[in-house]
């Protein structure tokens, strides 16, 4: 289809609703956040321009730096998610009976609303009478202070994130596994490659883009996590929490919307960097 008039009109028409909505709401909102990050704003009085002092203040704040460190630690969910979802996908793809049922079971946490999941886990984590500690005691390890002690509160939230997410990513990896060309696998088998060999040299490179996708998307989610921390381990001091709960506290409890916006912008920068990483990773290492 040639003709300059058509050329621009048709794509625009198709894109218009999406552009209007995403541009008008999300992007415009983001632009405002960028603006607020240079102001001191409490929502009850007009924003006051303060230049980059929000950013400098954040970088000097103990609680922000601690939350950054915790966010970095939270990224550890990514290998867990990638690993678990790969195992789950492989088990479903392996052709065992009842794979369909397993698939449903794995997806159930994804379907569970976060508030509900957080509630359920909170009861399980209860230090005195929760099932988790009861189980640990049976095995001989003493109970863990899931809801109150320093590294464990973060781990508790991370477990919920992994639990909630792995079914979703399993579906992505399942699609990739299923798409591995059969003949390649058979050729490898004929060449005498064992199961491990086939896996390493045929399957893995094939699903590499999918693995990278899962890795990066789950990392981005890990950085944006809020509900698991806000609900499941509610009550822990801010030094146990991550950046988004801190942003929330700054914006809605301390009335420092400008500061929260600056934190949001810094988070966005990190996420952007991670996404660029995804692009590089998925281009490299893919055999297909």
């Amino acid at each position, binding site marked *: 289809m040639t003709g300059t008039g058509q050329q621009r009109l048709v794509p625009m028409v198709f894109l218009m609703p999406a552009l209007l909505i995403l541009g008008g709401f999300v992007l415009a909102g983001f632009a405002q956040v960028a603006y607020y990050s240079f102001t001191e704003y409490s929502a009850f009085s007009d924003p006051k321009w303060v230049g980059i002092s929000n950013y400098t203040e954040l970088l000097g704040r103990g609680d922000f730096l601690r939350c950054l460190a915790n966010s970095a630690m939270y990224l550890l969910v990514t290998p867990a998610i990638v690993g678990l979802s790969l195992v789950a996908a492989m088990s479903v793809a392996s052709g065992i009976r009842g794979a369909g049922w397993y698939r449903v079971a794995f997806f159930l946490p994804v379907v569970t*609303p976060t508030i509900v999941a957080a509630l359920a886990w909170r009861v399980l984590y209860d230090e005195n009478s929760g099932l988790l500690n009861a189980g640990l005691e049976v095995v001989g390890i003493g109970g863990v202070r899931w809801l109150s002690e320093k590294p464990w509160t973060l781990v508790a939230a991370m477990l919920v994130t992994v639990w909630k997410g792995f079914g979703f990513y399993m579906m992505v990896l399942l699609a990739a596994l299923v798409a591995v060309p059969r003949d390649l696998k058979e050729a490898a088998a004929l060449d005498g490659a064992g199961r491990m060999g086939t896996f390493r040299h045929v399957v893995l490179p094939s699903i590499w883009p999918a693995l990278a996708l899962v890795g990066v998307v789950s990392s981005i989610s890990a950085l944006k996590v809020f509900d698991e921390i806000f609900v499941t381990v509610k009550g822990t001091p801010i030094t146990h929490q991550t950046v988004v709960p801190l942003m929330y506290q700054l914006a809605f409890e301390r009335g420092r919307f400008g500061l929260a916006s600056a934190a949001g912008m810094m988070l966005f920068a990190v996420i952007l960097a991670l996404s660029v990483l995804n692009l590089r990773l998925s281009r490299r290492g893919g055999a297909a």
Partner: protein
Amino acid sequence: MIERRTVMASAVWHGLAAVLALIAVGPAVWLVLVSLQPSGTSLHSASVRGLTLENFAEAWKQGQLGGPALNSVLVTSARVVLNVLIAAMAAYPLARMSFRGRDTVFVLLLATMMVPEQVVLVPMFRTVAGMGLFDTLAAVVLPFSVTAFGIYLCRQAFLAVPTELEEAARIDGCGPWRTWLHVMVPLSAPTLATLALFTVLGSWSELLWPLIVLQDREKMTLPVAMSSLMSGAFVTNVRLAYAASVIALLPVVVVFLFAQRFLRPDAFGGAVKG
């Protein structure tokens, strides 16, 4: 796709899958169990004595969950329709047409996925209020009636459609709309169904945005009503809170069970090709 495996390999996979499935399903089952226990039981016991449905009836009645449930259905349905429609529309030029600025537009759209939600909600609320949509269900639906993730999915699916089919349609005299409607959309049906499912999942239990936008109690969606109950009527009767949670969970599970036939592996189309 069934490959022959040795018995032991099968057993290993079965074992792993079973353990994972148990972990996956455990908390939800626990929740259901607690909701079924009669009200005297301690919250931490696993007893199955005297299971009853009365907690659900109580939660429904006391929490007056009927209206909010209906509102949630309305909002979610609207979102699903809009999301699929708008994303499928937007994906077409991004996948198949070339025009100036196409890649910039795509990147801009993707950037919206990286925006942290908590702070951007307040400016979005200002926009919505400025449009005169304060305290309306439309305001709940509209800003999320399309997502970059949906566009990404659809684009990947469209990219996987063989160009020959499009050529054929063109030769038959179809313009862009007809091609879109009769070729691209039907061939990406699994992906669109997946997108619909994900939209349902994301929309049904959404709490923060409706909480901020809505004021009128008649317009509350289910999660908002439940949050109000959690800190209000049900704060000491946690069992009712759990029962209400199960009620909130049920429709989504049903939808999922129904829709999961569409979740065939190829639903993710070219997404896995990077």
